[in-house]
């Protein structure tokens, strides 16, 4: 069963990987030509217009975009977090529910396999694809940044781990939500919604101290990119919370799915 799951989900995985790789490839190819003394001067002037809180929210106060790596740490990494988050959300929302939507579950559930094993197989494939997307993107970025110039290897490796801390809980949350649904039709919307709400909450919490508490309500806090850039370390508590949320929602998925009416 697991082999089939890999095959079924391969196409969407390749599409998401291509989107990410192409996006970075374009930037890596044109960025060196964009960064001249003159454009940097203009850019520095432009940055002064922005309130410091906005610069903080996008980590532009602690990293300069005068190099490709600088761009990667700020703007580029925001895209990585958003796109990997979206992939994990949509995958989580559809991987289990697809069988019901396609009505193939009536066949699958009549086979001598426990429902929990169906869930396990799907979760394993989901996690592997999320990790694989991250690993392949890491390899691509590592090679590209090595060619492009200097970068802090340790910081880069730690940064590349952080999307996993948000992607796994997002995968699990969306898997859990999908056990309440019958069709995959709404799952893309729900997946997008969850990612953007979490992301907006994360940005807001960094813009002003008045709503700093919002960071407790968003998965994106777990990426903790600012801390990684400043301290060149990952806070182990974030890893534990990420794993904790993932495990809780996966347990919830098993419990719900074992009671679900499948047709």
């Amino acid at each position, binding site marked *: *069963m697991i082999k*089939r799951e890999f095959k*079924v989900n391969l196409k969407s995985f390749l599409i998401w990987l291509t989107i990410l790789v192409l996006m970075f490839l374009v930037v890596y190819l044109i960025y060196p030509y964009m960064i001249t003394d003159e454009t940097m001067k203009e850019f520095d002037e432009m940055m002064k217009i922005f309130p410091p809180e906005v610069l903080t929210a996008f980590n532009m106060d602690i990293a300069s975009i005068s190099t490709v790596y600088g761009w990667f740490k700020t703007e580029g990494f925001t895209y990585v977090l958003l796109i990997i988050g979206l992939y994990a959300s949509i995958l989580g929302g559809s991987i289990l529910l697809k069988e019901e939507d*396609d*009505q*193939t*579950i*009536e*066949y699958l*559930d*009549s*086979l*001598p*396999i*426990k*429902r929990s094993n169906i869930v396990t197989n799907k979760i394993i494939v989901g996690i592997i694809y999320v990790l694989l997307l991250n690993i392949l993107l890491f390899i691509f970025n590592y090679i590209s940044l090595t060619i492009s110039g200097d970068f802090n290897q340790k910081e880069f490796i730690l940064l590349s781990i952080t999307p996993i801390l948000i992607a796994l809980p997002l995968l699990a949350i969306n898997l859990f939500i999908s056990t309440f649904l019958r069709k995959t039709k709404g799952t893309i919307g729900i997946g997008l919604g969850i990612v953007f709400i979490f992301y907006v909450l994360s940005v807001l919490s960094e813009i002003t101290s008045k709503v700093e508490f919002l960071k407790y309500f968003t998965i994106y806090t777990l990426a903790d990119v600012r801390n990684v850039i400043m301290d060149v370390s990952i806070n182990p508590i974030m890893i534990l919370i990420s794993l904790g949320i993932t495990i809780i929602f996966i347990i919830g998925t098993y419990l719900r799915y*074992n*009671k679900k*009416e*499948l*047709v």
Partner: protein
Amino acid sequence: MSKSIIELKHLKKYYDTSRGIEDVSLKIDKGDIYGFIGPNGSGKSTTIRTIMTLINKTSGEIYINGKELEFDDVKVKRSIGYLPSEINLYDDMTTKELLDYHESFYKEDLSKRRKELVKLLKVDENKKVGALSLGNQKKVGLVLALMHEPEILILDEPTSGLDPIMQNTLHDILLKEKEKGTTILYSSHVLNEVSNICDKVGFIKDGIIIKEDLMENIKKENYTYLKIISNEIDKIKKDLKLKVHKELNNEIVFINTLTPKELITKLKDYNIEHLLIEEVPLEDLFINYYK
């Protein structure tokens, strides 16, 4: 006493407030073919899906092989071959890939039986499942249901989409399965279809079993059709006091419960142009149950 392989006791299923099945009780003995008959929406598929634990029963009991059915019991699943009424298989696979996939869930070597069934049902293994017609998909579904040689076969409207030749082939296969001791639950909305192979039939209406009997007894229902053509129809109607099945001008068809002797006595003084006594077709019996 023969052993019940499937037994349902007051099975009830409600979807929120809407009725799926109200009260289904039935017993299927080992090696029997049980015709589960009812029109669309009567609760046949709901009953079957409850047995398959695809949906949760509201109340009642299900026994398989004398043991109360537990949710998601793999051992029970292994003993059942199931063909749903609407077949939805993995469209992206070729039939061969699907059969291989199916085989991978069983420890036993299913290749011999698979080959036999593929040949008997004339299944093209090289085509993608999604490219097959409904009838051919049904044939693939039948191979899947039968290839692990299950003790119990649950077939929900198995012949829909099959041509008459293939229907006969299927019935031959089922009779051979019966000889081997396989217990079969065969759901259909056509009584004629199951009359030649079923040992017992249960009629379901609005989620309730309204009649259950041996097929031979159903066939011997103690009434016939009595067709009379006469210019004294009104008088005959009053005198015979029989239920009218159909009436047109001076021609009438009664539901006859009288013996031939009683009929001759009662009709001897009438001017009758034509008289015919005939057996009630099974489908008319079926319709009568659902009136």
